[in-house]
């Protein structure tokens, strides 16, 4: 497992278009392991915060409906090339996933 997060931020007119791919199993806790026939415990990202130059622009609470290896895309006004976009995710077991990218 290389980096947990892949990010890309480009300008689309005067709006910053951010695309994020996070590597995470996003287990709902309701599926069984086929080999052991035991429930696979819930393991999913439940909070995502995105920042533009340190200021929070997105605050999301995720649940089990989000699929494995979640893809997040959002657009932010007021950004320009060179700005830093940060994404910080936390899962239900407290693991943190952080990524940062410079707007192209």
């Amino acid at each position: 497992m290389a980096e947990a997060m892949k990010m890309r931020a480009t300008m689309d007119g005067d709006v910053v278009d951010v695309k994020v791919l996070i590597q995470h199993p996003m287990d709902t806790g309701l599926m069984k392991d086929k080999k052991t026939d035991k429930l696979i415990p819930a393991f999913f990202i439940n909070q995502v915060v995105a920042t533009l130059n340190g200021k929070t622009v997105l605050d999301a609470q995720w649940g089990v409906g989000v699929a494995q290896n979640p893809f997040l895309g959002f657009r932010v006004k007021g950004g320009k090339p060179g700005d830093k976009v940060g994404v910080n995710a936390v899962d239900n077991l407290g693991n943190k996933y952080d990524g940062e990218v410079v707007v192209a």
Partner: protein
Amino acid sequence: MKRILTFIMAGLLFGCAHTGPTADSSSPEEDRVALIDHYKQILPNIKFEDYIYGALAMNPDAKSQYDSFMEFPSYSIDLDKGRKMWETPFKNGKQFASCFPNGGKNVAGDYPYFDNASNRVVTFENAINACLKANGEADLKYAGDEMGLLTAYARSLSDGMKVNVKVEGAGALAAYEKGKKYYETRNGQLNFACKTCHVDNAGKFIRSDQLSMMVGQASHWPEFRGGTDIVTLQGRFKQCEKNVRAKPKEANSEEYNDLEYYLTYMSNGLPMLTPVFRK
């Protein structure tokens, strides 16, 4: 009497007039050119280079969604798994790259080819398994996810290469003709041939999907269908056969290898791109 004569004359006329792409005496190249002419007639607004996009070339909105997805595909993480498989050395220290000329770059367009020595079609997946076997490793299941992810990366090393399948010699021609016959034979409970949808009715809708043209199909496999499920070309053959309610053959069966041979030849001259997204 006059009526019977009229019927006989009409029958003769129609019989002689039929020299379409399915005539047995034509060469593979003639077949290919005839097919492209056919698509130029039924889909005149689509350029030859855009045949690789299939139904996307017929729908600008769908194409722009595809382009936006391909800028940063959500399957990048899965593709990395394929890259890892390709780059990880075998137990004996060698890598996949050692089994192919040029380290595996720009080779996929030459597959499948007909091997006169073993008298059979050899696909890229066959070559991968031959490489594994030659290096003392277990081979991969042909339509499985591992083979899909590995070839998704391995074939990407040939992106941009033009499909360049050769049909030379009696054995090759026989395999080509078998593939062509399978393509044109009605199949399954719904009684459709591959040709029925993808040649005769390309551009039309089947339920909510638009039918892609056959030329250009083979250049972009395996695909991440729905953005998440990796499907090889022969895996897709199985799905299509199920769709017409026929019993699918096995991947790497003689029928599917000959079919892949025929199908890929028909995409000669078009640039490859692997993997791609389809809905």
